[in-house]
């Protein structure tokens, strides 16, 4: 057993973990952030994507102890439970969600991209979500949604 401290969605957590525990298991099983989905469990599908210190990671490929002292954002940290985040709003409006299993990871990849690059080209958007597999949507409506979200975020920035 090992005790680690980490920040998840802006809150500090101190938790006991096994040394071989994966980050996804810490998030889902121990802390109940079940918005993070496990797909393949081997870093190929991106369903378990979370943001760690500003970079997307597959939480199935990161061990929990590696998150010590880090800042993690999960899908629960996007939007506030009441109001939708502009990315989520754009996903709904564009019909970017079908079965939904890949969507938490998609939204987080979109957020990490837009945080770094507020006005990406369509090809940069495609690159930004290329680590997230989707079997339903064919990606195009997701690309449309991220493009729209970038405009929403720009407008939000202007009004502030």
């Amino acid at each position, binding site marked *: 057993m090992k005790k680690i401290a980490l920040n998840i969605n802006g809150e500090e957590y101190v938790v006991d973990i096994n040394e071989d525990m994966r980050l996804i298991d810490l998030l889902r099983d121990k802390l109940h952030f079940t918005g993070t989905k496990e797909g393949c469990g081997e870093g*190929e599908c991106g369903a378990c994507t979370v943001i760690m210190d500003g970079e997307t990671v597959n939480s199935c490929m990161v061990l929990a102890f590696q998150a010590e002292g880090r800042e993690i954002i999960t899908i629960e940290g996007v939007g506030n439970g009441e109001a939708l985040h502009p990315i989520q709003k754009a996903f709904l409006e564009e019909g970017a969600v*079908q*079965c939904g299993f890949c969507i938490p990871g998609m939204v987080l990849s979109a957020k990490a991209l837009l945080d770094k690059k507020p006005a990406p080209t369509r090809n940069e958007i*495609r690159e930004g979500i*290329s680590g997230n597999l989707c*079997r339903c949507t*064919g*990606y195009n409506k997701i690309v449309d949604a991220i493009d729209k979200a970038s405009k929403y975020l720009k407008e939000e920035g202007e009004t502030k």
Partner: protein
Amino acid sequence: MKKRGIGYASTFYGTGYGNGFPDISRAIAELGTDGNIYIYVGATEVGQGAKTILSQIAAEALGVDFSSIVFICEDTSITPDAGTAAASRQTYNTGNAIKLASEKLRNEIINILEKRYGISTENIEDYLLQVAKLNGDEALRMDGIFTASTTEMDAETGQGNPYYPYTFSVYGIEVEVDTTTGIVEVTKAVCGQDVGRAINPKLIEGQIDGGFSMGLGYGIMEDINLQSGRIKHDRFTSYLIPTALDMPDIDKIIIEEPEATGPYGAKGIGEPVLVAVAPAILNAIYNAVGVRMKEIPVTPERLLKALKVKERGV
């Protein structure tokens, strides 16, 4: 060297189980004691948009706002069997069952308003609670049953009427073939899809994008690699499916030619949007490099081999 080519393929596809297999959808439309309209149906929502489309059909048939429909599906203990979410059959088959049930309920509500209150109206929305209260604790329920037209084909001649209706579609696809690596990139695509009537155009576009990516994977990437009955490519590291970078933007043309037997003219399109993709890609490869590929997926290895064979003139 990179070579470009364009290919087309079209398909007509019979929706429903077909070949005489019983294809029945059932639905219940109910005016609840709380004045809400409830639709009960066993149809399964798997992300394709059945809940949305079937609620739209109910709202249209009842003449009430979309938001007044409480749609209850999938729970087999309280919903009637509407068949599987398969065979591209929910919009057409179950849509028809819901339309029938909703029309019956609407007529009953109009009758009650006329007989009990002397109100003659086509606009039932404002009177729903009033009518609901008349029945006390009992909800007003109407069922709708739709049976698709299908006959078994003659085993000898292949004749018969296995499916009804048919959906038509055509794809035009541009590819770029790298003759050094054998990699095929799909650079442009246009889809013309007959839908009967577009109940929800945005959902149709989503189905076209999704079907395209499955067809693209089927045509040039996805290989389960069966060896002695075992699937060797049993994970995403070896079984490759398209990513966002593999997909082109698709120019979509929705063709509305209402089908007389469909709910408001609509037909199913879930599978039809996928069928013609792979053949159109293979035709485009032929157009680009002159080799006629007859085995899918057209992986780089297979294409390079075919290009070598062509070079040697064997």
